């Protein structure tokens, strides 16, 4: 399995390259808790995403929750957003290598499931299992 990563600052993706774009298995929205504009951009981009992606193929990644005195977006705002779109949230600190590696591993595992590489687990069932544990 070969993973490919496509970065972009906002959606929708430019339409002229639609025909050569590979299948998208997982969309990770990275929210920087230290900047208000990050959240606004993501909320605007979310409106361009096809509804079928939200059945387990979308994940929110909140960065910068470690420095509590510098965050301009509260964590429960992010949690509410994720709850509204029925998708899981991961928290990550980019400066700490261990957390970075662990989060990357989690995302890769999620990608495997979303691409269907794990038999018996579909993206939807996986995301609903994660969600239940968050709500608890």
């Amino acid at each position, binding site marked *: 399995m070969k993973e490919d990563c496509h970065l972009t600052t906002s959606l929708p993706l430019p339409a002229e390259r639609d025909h050569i774009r590979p299948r998208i298995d997982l969309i990770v929205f990275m929210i920087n808790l230290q900047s208000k504009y990050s959240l606004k951009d993501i*909320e605007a981009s*979310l*409106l*361009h*995403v*096809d*509804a*079928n992606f*939200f*059945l387990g193929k979308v994940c929110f990644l909140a960065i910068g929750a470690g420095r509590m005195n510098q965050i301009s977006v509260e964590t429960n705002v992010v949690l509410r957003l994720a*709850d*509204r*779109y*029925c998708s899981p949230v991961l928290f990550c600190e980019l400066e700490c290598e261990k957390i970075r590696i662990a989060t990357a591993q989690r995302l890769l595992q999620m990608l495997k499931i979303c691409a*269907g*590489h*794990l*038999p*018996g687990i*579909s993206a*939807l*069932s996986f995301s*609903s299992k994660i969600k239940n544990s968050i709500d608890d």
Partner: protein
Amino acid sequence: MAEKFAKTASLYSQDVSPTVSSTLLSSDIAREQLLEECEELWKQMEECQNKLTLEEIETVPGSDAKLLLLMKQVKSLTAELNLWQQRKPEIITTNPDVLVALGRDQLQKLDHELEMVLSTVQAKNKKLKQDLLREERWLEEQQQLIDCLNQTEEEISKEVVQFSEKRTFQELKSKMLKVKDYKDEILNALGEFLEEHFPLPEEDGTAKKKKHSSAKQDVQLITLHEILENLIHKIIKSPHDPYVTINASFWSPYIELLLRYGIALRHPEDPNRIRLENFHQ
């Protein structure tokens, strides 16, 4: 339609892993068979994929997002559930070599995963035991501390004496009595001392002296003891005016004695008045 897609996807995902395919290099027939089956599945998937891409894009409005998505989730989950319920165990190929290799591969993976689980559980168990030990030790120490404190409390509470007004009063009374006794004792001692060493001048029996001193001895002399008593009395009772006027009943040599040794002081303006020195201040 999504169900069919899911079905083919699940079948495709059980596909032969690279390790298995490498062991089958020798058996060409098996390989050919597998490749054919893969091609068929791939064609089915392409059909589904084409149908999917022709569907129009449905975006999620921000306001009703949760409701819409939850309803979609319900539909998809029920579809998946139906699929699982209808599913019967299917063998992807009837070729025994492939099946054996596949089975071995899966068992190895399972074995590996179970070993990981075992080691994790063992490590957790060890850590829990260490934690338990630590907590027990802490509990013991705290218990010892409690015992020690209880002991100290007992000892101190024994020494605490309940305050009783009556007893304080009694104590003060006894103190006062003691002080009074002492005062009487020393006054007696003083009196005896003065009597012995500073008596009043005796009246001379001879007539000669009587003629001379008869004028002087008209007044009854008072003892030094009495003089001192007067002085003490005056200074204690009226400290603002401690001066006593010298009268004829004071024998002058004794006055001189008192003045010379600093026991009494003259009034700065009036030579006839004396006072006791401030021994008590």
